[in-house]
């Protein structure tokens, strides 16, 4: 394991983002390692969600956004010339803050990604749906009602459907934007277990405002404050002996 410790999967270099005149991210540079969980913490509005959305270029969808700097995935700049955003997003999956299943059946939700990737054979789709649901620790709960609406599930189950949906297209990276913010403690625990399990196969980047969660699930932690990366390091270091006082203030809850 030690050998892979420093295999960089994602590298952001001098990344800045502007909403019109307002600068939301200031020269963010950091590396995220393969098969590790990197957590982003910081107060609301500090730019952590904005940052992970730059990695699969979801910010492109918002009018008036301007981005400078680079974000490399496997050494390729996703803001470089000739990038196929659609293919990029196939390799960088995303789970959103609010669970957002399509108003379709569970099966259709999971099969959607593979279908847009050109997989049409029913048996293949069945396999993918089953393995993805198993991967998201949901199979046992829903296997008997795959064709009922995903919206009928509980919040935690919906979020796991979204995770299953994201892994169904077999991405390398999973971006999770506060995936547990709307969930109860038991569902949160299940998702956290799941994250630990998934990192064997994926590079995971998670945004959370729950510091205990960051401490529980992540290998690395980055602390953001007003669009700037204040501190980045191994989780155990950040939480036990932070270098910057800002980080310490935030972690110890002394923050305004």
């Amino acid at each position, binding site marked *: 394991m030690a050998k892979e410790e420093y295999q960089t999967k994602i590298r952001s270099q001098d990344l800045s983002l502007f909403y019109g005149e307002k600068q939301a991210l200031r020269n963010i540079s950091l590396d995220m390692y393969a098969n590790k969980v990197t957590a982003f913490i910081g107060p609301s509005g500090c730019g952590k969600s904005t940052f992970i959305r730059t990695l699969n270029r979801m910010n492109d969808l918002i009018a008036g956004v301007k981005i400078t700097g680079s974000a490399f995935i496997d050494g390729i700049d996703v803001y470089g010339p000739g990038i196929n955003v659609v293919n990029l997003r196939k390799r960088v*999956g995303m789970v*959103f803050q609010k669970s*957002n299943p399509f*108003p379709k059946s569970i099966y259709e939700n999971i099969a959607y990604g593979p279908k*847009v990737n050109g997989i049409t054979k029913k048996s293949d789709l069945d396999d993918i749906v089953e393995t993805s649901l198993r991967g998201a620790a949901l199979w046992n709960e829903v296997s008997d009602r795959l064709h009922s609406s995903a919206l009928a599930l509980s919040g935690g189950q919906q979020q796991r459907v979204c995770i299953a949906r994201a892994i169904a297209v077999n991405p390398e990276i999973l971006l999770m934007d506060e995936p547990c913010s709307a969930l109860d403690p038991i569902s949160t625990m299940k998702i956290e277990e799941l994250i630990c399990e998934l990192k064997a196969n994926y590079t995971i980047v998670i945004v959370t405002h729950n510091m205990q969660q960051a401490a529980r699930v992540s290998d690395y932690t980055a602390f953001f404050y007003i669009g700037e990366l204040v501190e980045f390091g191994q989780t155990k270091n950040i939480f036990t002996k932070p270098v910057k006082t800002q980080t310490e203030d935030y972690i110890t809850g002394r923050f305004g």
Partner: protein
Amino acid sequence: MREHRKSFIGFLAMRLPMLATLLIILTIVLIIGDFFFAGIGHVTWEFLTQPPRNANTEGGILPAIIGTAELVLLMSLAAVPVGTITAIYLTEYARQTSIFARIIRFAVNTLAGVPSVVFGLFGLGFFIQTVGGQMDQVRWDQRMKSLHAVIAAPASPVAGNHIATVALVQTYLQKADNGDWTDQATKLNGFPRGTVARVNADIVERYFRNSVELNWGKPGLIWAALTLALLTLPVVIVSVEESLRTVPRDIREASLALGATKLETIIKVVIPNSLTGILTGSILAIGRGAGEVAPILFTGVVYSAQEGPHALTDQFMHLGYHLYILATQSTNVEATQPLQYATTLVLLVLTLALNLSAILLRSHIRRRQVA
């Protein structure tokens, strides 16, 4: 004293709006009640299933019902796809600052404000005379080519530089090509200088070329439907746009994050989620189209027909126009009064039912938006 006056003004100011509302609602109730009680006794099975008889003074309105139905169906076939696609462009593709989108919105608003009778004029000037006229001309030019061959054939009395009477040419045409030209031969009866006039091949052809046979270039179902489609386009656009906007942004993002393209997202996620809205738009458009008479006055409606239209170029009867004719043009307005009230009731029930279902669907969508 001052206090008194002030409270009186306050009393008026609070009561007048209520009275105004009450007055409007009473008028609505009066209209519906008036037509319901005056018409209900005359809406019989026979009335709904029989064609009109005796110059529209007796019988039923079946052809008008069929004509109206076919008209609005054809209309929605044209208006719904175009309207939906425009709405998709406006909500999904256009940026907020886009000038093109702004011009489109302005055009849609203008379209919604153009008086309906102007649409009728446009239908006449554009669809019938320009589009239909061209279609006829092209077809007629084809026909003229074969006619030229027939007239120039050696057997023809006017072959070469020969001169013959119109009657001779007529007899020849009646037999030519196994009777393919009988219709044209008959047309020679109307030759301005009579059938005894002497003509050559050139004149015969010129005569035929000038008498284009109208098929598309005259009022008909298709042109009336297209004219109405233009009129109802804004209704569809506004309504579909409203429902597209209620599709949450996060499920769009979820689809894009899975590597779906924008178009895939629109087709597989956005449209299925706003089907109710598209349906509402279609129903509203049909409700509006079914009641409009002015645009079809000169684009295809007829006074009386025994059956519904069979072809796209057929003229048709229409419920609203039928009512207008009965109420203002009939030879015996008094005698047809029961028919008038019954027709009104049918038309009113039809449009109100469409509008009510659209309102219900729409409130359903709005509830979803809140939830």
